[in-house]
């Protein structure tokens, strides 16, 4: 079933990618690529530019230099939209709306993965019982799980996960690792930032290190 991979460009690659804020270099130039089924771990201390890197990759910030490729073709900011899903520090969800309303709104914006519904996605992350509760009544860890449900619900093959392990208990950390593994098995790819405190499930995952 697997076609040979040699002729196929990696899902995502960055070439000489750099970002500066007010002429102050934040990271880069960086060269890396992520193939389908691969996970790339981005390590670095606080303030080393991990979050900024993910925001640049998602298309939320313009890169100062360098190029970004999807499937070997240069991808501008708009052509990346919908293919990259960002799990950031901000939930991207409204506190007054219920879990279901938030997820259904996002599915309206992005579309949804084949056969996946808001209900099914919340069942995967163990918050189906809170489906109709306003988001503000959930704990920080539960909100994180809702954000993970969003990853499952929305289509998009590149996951950009910014500190996905923060606020999660041990089961939550395992859940994140299971979700990433499942996503990679479906042919997706993930970039994960970490300040290095959490052990990462996939020992084969490649690392890049940011830092001054």
């Amino acid at each position, binding site marked *: 079933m697997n*076609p040979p991979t040699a*002729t*196929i*460009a990696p*899902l995502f690659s960055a070439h000489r990618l750099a970002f500066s804020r007010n002429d102050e270099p934040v990271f880069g130039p960086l060269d890396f690529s992520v193939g*389908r089924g691969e996970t790339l771990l981005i390590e670095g201390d606080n303030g080393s530019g991990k979050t900024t890197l993910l925001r640049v990759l*998602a*298309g*939320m*910030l*313009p890169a100062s230099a360098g190029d970004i490729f999807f*499937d070997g073709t240069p991808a501008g900011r708009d052509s990346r*939209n*919908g*293919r*990259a*899903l*960002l799990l*950031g*520090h*901000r*939930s*991207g*969800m*409204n*506190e*007054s*709306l219920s879990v279901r*309303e938030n997820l*259904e*709104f*996002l*599915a*309206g*914006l*992005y*579309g*949804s*993965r*084949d056969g*996946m519904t808001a209900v099914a996605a919340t069942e995967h992350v163990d918050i189906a019982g809170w489906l109709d509760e306003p988001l503000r009544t959930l704990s920080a860890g539960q909100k994180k799980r809702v954000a993970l449900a969003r990853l499952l619900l*929305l*289509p*998009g*093959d590149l996951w950009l996960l910014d500190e996905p392990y923060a606020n999660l208990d041990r089961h939550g950390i395992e859940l994140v690792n299971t979700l990433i593994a499942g996503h990679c098995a*479906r*042919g*997706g*790819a993930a970039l994960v930032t970490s300040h290095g405190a959490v052990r990462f499930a996939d020992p084969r995952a490649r690392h890049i290190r940011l830092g001054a």
Partner: protein
Amino acid sequence: MSSTAQSMTDDRIARGATGARAGAAGACMALLRRDLVLAWRRRGELFLPLLYALIVTALFPFALGPDPQLLGRIAGGVLLVIVVLTMLPALDSMFRTDLEDGTLEQWLLAPQPLALLALTRVIAHWLTTALPLIVVMPLLGALLDLPAKVLPVLVLALLLATPLLVLLGSVLSALAAGTRRSGILLALMLLPLAVPVVIFAAGAIAAAQSGMPFIAPLTWLAAALILAIVLAPLACAAALRIAVES
């Protein structure tokens, strides 16, 4: 040879990103629905500006004396200004919570035209803040002895002027979203832009009051509204990008 490679790539893309992409119309409907649900949850807050407009209107007879002729002559212009001032505070918060909780980031990353989402937000904002004001206009008009023949023209002028104000306000609100305590700043930026809107709307009301044809100023308002519907969402989208980037 290359075509087989291409089809293999397509196959892999299909396996990786399986799922239906949302259409722009569906996305706008989802956003409209969400905004209206949120507004309904906070319906008590939506009622306050109406109360404010009612009280301010009631102040005029007290301040100017209960002279029906004087009140009737100034009623149209007074109500117009009251509507503009009542709409200001809500415009300030048009994008603020969405910027703070990251919803705007999702707008940017979604495969949808940002300007279209901005226009949808304008429509939702108009429906929840301006439309109720227009609905209570007969009541406010009665408080000021507004002549019956002027009321339909006032309502018509407001139906054209208020969307225009929300469109102008959306651009400024997006620009100011990143700054804290921008309420008075937004008012200072928006009110000069509102001057032509007020002039044309007041022109129509004055013409109706003196029995003259009032279509021309209304047509100008309509033309400005059409122009703003096309241009303001684009400017608003650019401002939203700046707000999310900074």
